């Protein structure tokens, strides 16, 4: 497979192209033309499609998109392009298996296919959503680690260091990144989970110096750094620098790839093709051992809409049918903590991912944009539902997800905000308060009404 330095060489010597030309003359026309060529048509009646022919067309279109368009390096204003053989080699020689955590907490992320009977991997946590204090960070992260299904932790982001607001690129960001990893590790130890893998070591950081500092200071072989695209099929030196560091240390990269519905990729059809094509971007450019595919809507920022499920399911199915590189599918929930809507969103997203061949990185509530509006309950619920749909057919999960969407999709644009972690959980015991517990019980009952048979008893009794 191509080395990361070869990617840099191409970024430095490829065809010169302005960003506007890349968007308007290469990427957008290619997406529009491939939608027509492969007959991709969004179907709102099946949030989890089971049409294998459509899945195959999405894969072919995604592959063709990546070959036709290539990748744009915004720093050199040049194209990084690839040929068929390089794509085949990337699939054949991708690194695997991926084991997160160390010692007793070491666990492999399994290779799953659509409708797989293999239990998925659950990376649970705040996934980079912000918290306002060290106290909330520690209690919340320990609570995530104490969930019985947490195979790896996805840390929150700090917004302050010693009362000073963290600013990207500043020394505070570096310090915040170091503290994030150190404190996450300590939270896992307090939960008797020392050695638990961290799926996203330094969400506090934006810039490479913060990422590198956090990883160098406290991350180990069982952790991953999450590195993503900056816009559709674009990369920059800062992210290539993170990759160079991780490759140099032989560490694992989680490749975050997320087209925005309504953005450069257009509607759900263009996003589905782009997300499938992003598998090659993840392997060849991000050097990822695990792909983290997701999408969100430009207006609601929601990852749990009907369109989002349709396109992520298709892309996930396409990728997992053709690749042995595992996917951790995730996204943010629109509703806030301790709301039934938030739990139903988590259930629908987890079920969609699991039946489509993915594992689950259950993300934050409140769109991840309101500090402290987080709770372990949605993550727990995502895992309980995800475990329970293993072995179900895509048709049955699609019907279940449709029923859940019917209950909440009209509120995606204006979701209930819920309550902060410190308001719906007891910070010392890390247990939900009575009102939150009632919400959890109602959501379990709602899922049972949709026909789901839970494999496990409720964690919160």
């Amino acid at each position, binding site marked *: 497979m191509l080395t990361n330095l070869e990617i840099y060489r191409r970024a430095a010597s490829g065809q010169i192209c302005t960003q506007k030309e890349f968007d308007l003359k290469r990427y957008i026309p290619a997406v529009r033309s491939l939608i027509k060529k492969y007959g991709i048509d969004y179907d709102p009646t099946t949030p989890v499609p089971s049409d294998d022919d459509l899945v195959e067309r999405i894969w072919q279109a995604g592959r063709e998109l990546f070959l036709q368009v290539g990748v744009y390096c915004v720093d050199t204003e040049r194209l990084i392009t690839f040929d068929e053989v390089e794509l085949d080699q990337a699939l054949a020689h991708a690194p695997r298996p991926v084991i997160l955590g160390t010692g007793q907490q070491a666990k492999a992320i399994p290779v799953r296919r659509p409708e797989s009977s293999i239990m998925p991997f659950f990376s649970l946590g705040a996934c980079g959503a*912000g918290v306002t204090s060290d106290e909330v960070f520690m209690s919340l992260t320990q609570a995530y680690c104490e969930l019985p299904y947490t195979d790896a932790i996805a840390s929150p982001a700090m917004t302050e260091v010693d009362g000073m607001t*963290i*600013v*990207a690129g500043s020394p505070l960001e570096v310090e915040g990144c170091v503290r994030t990893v150190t404190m996450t590790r300590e939270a896992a130890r307090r939960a008797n989970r020392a050695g638990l893998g961290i799926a996203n070591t330094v969400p506090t950081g*934006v810039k490479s110096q913060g990422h590198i500092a956090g990883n160098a200071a406290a991350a180990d072989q069982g952790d991953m750094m999450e590195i993503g695209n900056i*816009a559709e099929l674009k990369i920059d030196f800062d992210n290539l620098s993170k990759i160079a560091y991780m490759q140099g240390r032989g560490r694992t990269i989680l490749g975050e790839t997320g087209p925005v519905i309504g953005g450069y990729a257009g509607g759900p059809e263009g996003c589905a093709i782009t997300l499938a094509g992003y598998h090659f971007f993840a392997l060849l450019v991000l050097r990822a051992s695990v792909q983290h595919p997701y999408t969100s809507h430009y207006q609601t920022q929601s990852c749990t809409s009907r369109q989002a499920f349709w396109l992520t399911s298709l892309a996930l199915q396409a990728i997992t049918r053709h690749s042995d590189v595992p996917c951790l599918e995730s996204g943010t929930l629109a509703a806030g903590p301790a709301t039934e809507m938030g739990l139903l969103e988590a259930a629908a997203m987890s079920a969609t991912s699991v039946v489509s061949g993915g594992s689950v990185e259950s993300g934050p509530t409140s*769109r991840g944009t309101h500090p402290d509006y987080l709770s372990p309950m949605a993550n727990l619920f995502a895992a309980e539902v995800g475990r329970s749909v293993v072995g179900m057919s895509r048709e049955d999960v699609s019907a279940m997800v449709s029923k859940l969407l019917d209950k909440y999709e009209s509120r995606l644009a204006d979701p209930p905000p819920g309550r902060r972690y410190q308001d719906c959980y007891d910070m010392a015991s890390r247990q939900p308060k009575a009102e939150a517990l009632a919400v959890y019980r109602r959501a379990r009952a709602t899922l049972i009404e949709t026909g789901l048979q839970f494999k496990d008893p409720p964690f919160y009794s």
Partner: protein
Amino acid sequence: MTDVETNPIAALMTAFTEADFDRVPGLVQEGLDKGLSARVLLDDGLVAGIREVGEMFRRGEVYLPEMMLAAEAWQAGMDVLEPLLEGQPQAEAKGRVVIGTVKGDIHSLGKNMVATLLQTAGFEVIDLGVDVPASKFVSAAIDARADIIALCALMTTTMPQQKEVIEHLAAADRREDFFVMVGGASATREWATQITADAYGETAADAVTLAEGYRNRAQRS
């Protein structure tokens, strides 16, 4: 024959609304050949067409690619008309907006959506790009005699740079000269109030509504 086949203005509108953008410059030329004036083709064809695409975006019927392609088509049509419009009074823009993603933040999508939507709504937009230092917003707004400054930030760690721009404006004693709008995935109404921004837009469409509201108030006063 249908109206679209015989009427160049109707055909132009259809080209915009049905995303058949490559046809726009040819249809403009066809309109000229049929005797329509450049002013009519501009106002009733190009301007009306691109504004309709903007409205379709607001209604969620089309997405960013159609907006960007429509803006390109509008420019291609203008290239045909411009020599004929020389010397004629130009329609005044609704206002001048300096826009960018703040320092430390390289995300362009939301900023581009707002910029394109403002253009389609009739504003003159000066796009400073991404990772823009506070001082550059200030100097660009002063140099361009802008009415509005629009600040985008996606990350919680880059939002403080929105505050930084406002503080730079105050330090230059120019805070009152500009209507400052903030937005981005992590920004909230509370944040906008806290940093004394003039407005917060949750969506790209909000930004246009806010900018238009400001212009209407400014024109009345």
